């Protein structure tokens, strides 16, 4: 599964089941994550990707890992500027005073740092625009910028390429590859997934039905994730 | 739920019924100037006494302000009222032929105390000390004779200025007992109040003489009185006014008199209150 000797194990799930009331969302999940892995979760909507990501997030945080997180509903503070939304990525790493001061009047050093990240995402022009005034694709990139600014080694992202054109999506994947040692990303675009993943996990009905290295997978192998076996094309 | 609703219905009907029976009731009120707690119980005793003596239904209704007492008198919701000097004058101006019929023994020569907080260094003196200028000052209720009218009259008389100009601040505490509490706490430096309230509080041990003391007392003036509407004879029969007057003057039971609190009632007439009317005109409370 890896080719660098014995990398650190980040997390292990053994027979984990998550249910809301009587509705089982994740069914007997067995999963091990290692440092340095780039994992993509594939599955139809409702297959349990988001729930699994949230569960991974909680477990990793409980293990005292620093995580960058891009949720599906971006969780942006719409009334605040792009600058502030990105700045949020590092609130816990700075003093309260710094945070308060930058809320009222952004300091030059932070402006520069964030401006740099935004340039890579072609958002530099919008540094001080309120996020609520941006388009869906731009907001998606703000959420990504926040994750990048956090400077964590692990990224968990739920459909981070939604609303992005192919070029921007590729750029984003490159940035993710460059900035995070490990990542778990839920995607629905198979091509995009294959371009970044070194391991693919397929979910269906809350169960893991596929867990393999990307290089070993053919497009046909992914079919069961999206289609019923007997109606396969 | 049904039981609850039925009980409610019974209560409501009961109230309604009592109200209807009370249609021919002679009603009186009293301005809220003295100890209000348990006021209703005390005045209900007075109502019982009057009811027995006059042989008609008599009921007491409580009011909260001088203005409300006057308004109730004017709108014939009460036919008899225990007014202060000023509120009595105001009420009788609004209701034709109404008259003052009795006053308390003490009301023939009522007076106001000016009191001051110890931090002012003011001491009792035969005239109002000049040093009270520019201090903070509180009256009692706006419509009170002893807490507003007379003290304002004497302040203007001596300093030839309105209280607003004379003092740094002029408050209206609401009543005599609040005036005392506020001056004793030093919130206001000087205040003016009904001398009977001061005496009662002193007796009850609620005054700390190291903090507050009387610095001047006004000359005497007529104050509280019973006033009756002019049309009661037409409703309850010829001579009803005289009967009510007699009943009041003959009220000797200390338990009843404690409601006011007065030692006895003596006859009074509208002309007794001429000085009050003139004073009110002088300081512009009455046009």
């Amino acid at each position, binding site marked *: 599964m890896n080719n660098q000797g014995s990398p650190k194990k980040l997390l292990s799930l053994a027979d984990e089941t998550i249910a809301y009331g009587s509705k089982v969302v994740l069914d007997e999940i067995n999963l091990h994550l290692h440092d340095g892995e780039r994992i993509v979760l594939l599955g139809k909507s409702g297959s349990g990707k988001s729930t699994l990501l949230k569960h991974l997030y909680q477990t990793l945080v409980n293990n005292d890992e620093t995580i960058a997180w891009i949720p599906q509903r971006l969780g942006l503070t719409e009334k605040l500027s792009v600058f502030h939304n990105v700045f949020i990525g590092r609130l816990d790493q700075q003093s309260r005073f710094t945070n308060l001061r930058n809320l009222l009047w952004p300091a030059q050093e932070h402006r520069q740092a964030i401006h740099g990240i935004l340039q890579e995402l072609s958002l530099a022009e919008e540094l001080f625009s309120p996020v609520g005034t941006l388009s869906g694709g731009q907001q998606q990139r703000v959420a990504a910028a926040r994750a990048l600014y956090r400077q964590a080694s692990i990224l968990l992202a739920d459909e981070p390429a939604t609303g992005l054109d192919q070029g921007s999506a590729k750029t984003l994947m490159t940035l993710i590859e460059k900035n995070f040692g490990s990542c778990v990303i839920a995607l629905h675009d198979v091509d995009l997934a294959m371009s970044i993943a070194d391991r693919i996990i397929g979910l269906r009905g809350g169960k893991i039905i596929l867990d393999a290295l990307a290089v070993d997978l053919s497009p046909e192998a992914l079919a069961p994730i999206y289609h019923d076996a007997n109606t396969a094309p | 739920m049904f039981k609850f609703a039925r009980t409610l219905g019974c209560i409501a009907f009961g109230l309604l019924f009592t109200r209807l029976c009370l249609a021919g009731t002679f009603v009186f009120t009293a301005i809220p100037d003295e100890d209000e707690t348990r006021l209703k119980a005390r005045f209900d005793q007075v109502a019982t006494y009057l009811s027995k003596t006059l042989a008609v239904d008599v009921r007491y209704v409580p009011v909260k302000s001088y203005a409300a007492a006057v308004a109730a008198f004017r709108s014939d919701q009460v036919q008899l009222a225990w007014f202060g000097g000023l509120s009595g004058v105001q009420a009788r101006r609004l209701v034709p032929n109404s008259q003052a019929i009795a006053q308390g023994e003490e009301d023939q020569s009522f007076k106001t105390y000016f009191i001051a907080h110890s931090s002012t260094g003011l001491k009792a003196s035969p005239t109002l000390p000049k040093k009270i200028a520019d201090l903070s000052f509180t009256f009692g209720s706006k419509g009170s004779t002893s807490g507003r009218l007379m003290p304002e009259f004497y302040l203007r008389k001596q300093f030839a200025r309105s209280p607003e100009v004379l003092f740094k601040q002029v408050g209206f505490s609401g009543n005599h007992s609040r005036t005392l509490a506020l001056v004793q706490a030093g*919130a206001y430096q000087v205040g003016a109040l009904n001398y009977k309230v001061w005496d009662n509080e002193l007796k009850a041990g609620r005054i700390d003489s190291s903090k507050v003391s009387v610095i001047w007392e006004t000359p005497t003036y007529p104050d509280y009185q019973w006033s009756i509407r002019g049309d009661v004879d037409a409703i309850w029969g010829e001579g009803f006014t005289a009967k009510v007057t007699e009943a009041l003057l003959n009220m000797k039971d200390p338990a009843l008199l404690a409601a006011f609190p007065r030692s006895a009632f003596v006859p009074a007439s509208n002309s007794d209150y001429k000085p009050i009317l003139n004073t009110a005109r002088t300081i512009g409370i009455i046009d």
Partner: protein
Amino acid sequence: MNAKSYPLPTSVVTSLLFIASALLCWIFADLSIVTRTPWQEFFRMAAGVFSPQWLPWPELLSALAKTLAFGLLAVALSALVGFLLCLYFHKRGVKLFCASIRAVHELFWGLLFIQLLGLHPAAGLLAIAIPYSGIFAKVFAEIIEESETESASSLPPASDKVSQFFYEKWPRIKAHFASYTLYRLECGLRSSTVLGFIGLPTLGFHLESGFMQGNYGLVTAMLIMLYVLIASIRVWARFRLMPLYAGVAAFYLWAPLNIDSTLVLSLVHDMSPLPLRNTQTEWWPWFSNLSSTQIFPGALNTLLITQIALVLTGVFSLISFPLLSKQFFPRPTRSLSHLLMVMLRSTPEIILAFVFLLLWGPSMLPAVLALAIHNGAITSHLLARHSNELELRLDASRGINRYLYEVLPRIYGQFLAFLCYRWEVIMRETAIVGILGIHTLGFYIDSAFESFRLDVAVLLIAVSALMNICVDEVARRTRRRLHLVKQPLVRAC
């Protein structure tokens, strides 16, 4: 690198303008502090708090039942009248009428109707129902206005107005109407209590007696009853039960009313300006004398107190709402804070003002603090409700960072909207501070009633109505400037 400078958001600029106006008023306001010997009185208060003095059962129950009955019936009536008025709210005349009737504190309506009807229950009922109708009309009209922006009409264009209303508007706004009406109940119970101060036989009647005589045990007992009543609203108040409640209340309060036409005529006579009745009085001297002695000083003091109290209300609620919000504190802390806030917002301002007066002597300080705490506790409660509806990210920061970057920016617009609503309320409530020797318009209105100068009272009421209309207009423009028109429909009373 980038030449872009940081533009201050409109909401921040607006807040700074509010703060600047308060600071300007601060310069002219007397906020001095004098402390001498308040401890004896505080000791008596503390003793009272620890030994509440309960009234005998029948009296207590009757006061409680009447507080409920007046509040319920008045709110039900005014919701109905407000609903009818709101349908014509686009007419300028109706709008002005509503602004005028809600500009006057219910205490003054009470004083007016006591003059007219004596101590009849209708006096108390109208005193609450009239200003509340004006408030309901305004809020209902805004609810309708906001619902119209939601979507274009899907009904056939030729449908008649009545059908249009009930098929299209009503389903959309019903829930908002219901929730606002229930919310208003709390205000109604408070008003019904406060009217006890001028003679309504509610809890406030005994509360005032106790307070005026320094019987703090009685004050405590009455306040506890009021707190329980207010805190229990959510248990028994249901929109569908309102007609039933109102019916029972009406039955309970009903009393025959005889209006004496000669009395009404003489009151109308008294209300007409003195120069009209008395040929010896000239118009101009009469008016200019009133202007220089009452109208101008009154209006100025009212404005000073309002602006400072408004900003302090904002500060108080911003600091205190996290205590009530699930974004910040666990349930036990929140329940405790909730209780505290019920106490702060239900205690009549005059009692708060009195406590501060004892502490710091007479100045505007006790007044602005009393107003700020009372109104701040209300806004705080509403802000917390609003913040509870926010969904934050899994990785949202905690503590002060969450407050600054996640919650505050999201609710700040609503916060300013609440303050805009509180603005006219605070202005109306400045009437209560006569005890502090501060001569607001309300103080002069009260004096006019006390000396039976109904013409002056009516004139001063008209002036406060005018000020209220101005403040309302500025508040409306502010909200529009901040694009707050389409904010979620939670409002203050």
